[in-house]
């Protein structure tokens, strides 16, 4: 990272080159990029901006709608099932691993984890306008 001071201050977590000052509860930056390194995981993180509690099924339909660029009501059961499998077997467990989401197996409820805010801050700080359509979806600015 060439311009550390700018990114560090924008993130608002007191990042600096002095790694000793970073609490252990804060993810290393590699994990942040890894978490956000896939479209579906960015969608998942964006949804946390809109609401803090979801079920896996709700998220599967919502994210399938975004990917296919159709209203949520038009998502077919097959599209929803494919997304449900992808989220439940790959992306949600990965984000749970990094403390970004929590997943309650019995209810399939998803909430923000202890590291969620750090990732959301990074997401907004890294020029999320590139993903502005996704972000608008996630913030509920689209009728669907």
């Amino acid at each position, binding site marked *: 990272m060439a311009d550390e001071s700018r990114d560090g201050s924008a993130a608002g977590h007191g990042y600096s080159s002095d790694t000793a000052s970073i609490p252990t509860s804060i993810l290393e930056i590699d994990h942040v990029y890894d978490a956000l390194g896939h479209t579906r995981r960015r969608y998942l993180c964006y949804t946390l901006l809109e609401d803090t509690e979801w079920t896996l099924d709700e998220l599967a339909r919502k994210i399938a709608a975004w990917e296919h660029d159709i209203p949520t009501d038009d998502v077919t059961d097959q599209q929803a099932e494919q997304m449900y*499998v992808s989220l439940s077997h*790959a992306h949600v467990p990965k984000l749970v691993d990094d403390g970004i989401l929590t997943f309650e*197996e019995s209810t399939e409820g998803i909430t923000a984890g202890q590291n969620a805010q750090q990732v959301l801050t990074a997401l907004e700080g890294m020029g999320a306008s590139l993903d502005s359509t996704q972000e608008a979806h996630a913030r509920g600015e689209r009728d669907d």
Partner: protein
Amino acid sequence: MTEGSTAGDGDVLPDADEDWTQAAQRHYDPEVEELTTAIIFTIADAAGVDPGEVKSPPLYECIDAPALENTFFGPNVVDVSRRGTGLVRFQYNHFLVTVRSDGWIRVFEPAEASSPG
């Protein structure tokens, strides 16, 4: 963990020490789906259930499917790997799963489950 069942060694047989019966197969197309999804759909087919009912454990806890997807089917290797014979196998519950670099996913179950053996 499922260590001991992940090696390939160019061996295309699922397991020399045990009798396995193929229960389902599916050809994976990296352009239309994730490998994770394709594997779970094949397992569901073998188990005779809807893919959404294959819940536990998450495949994430068995194998790094995105890494495998990149290794076998990434944009830089796909033409080479399709001609090769790379094979990864792992266990998912009582199923044995193999993924070949030519795109074939196969799911096996112990032979005694379906025949008097």
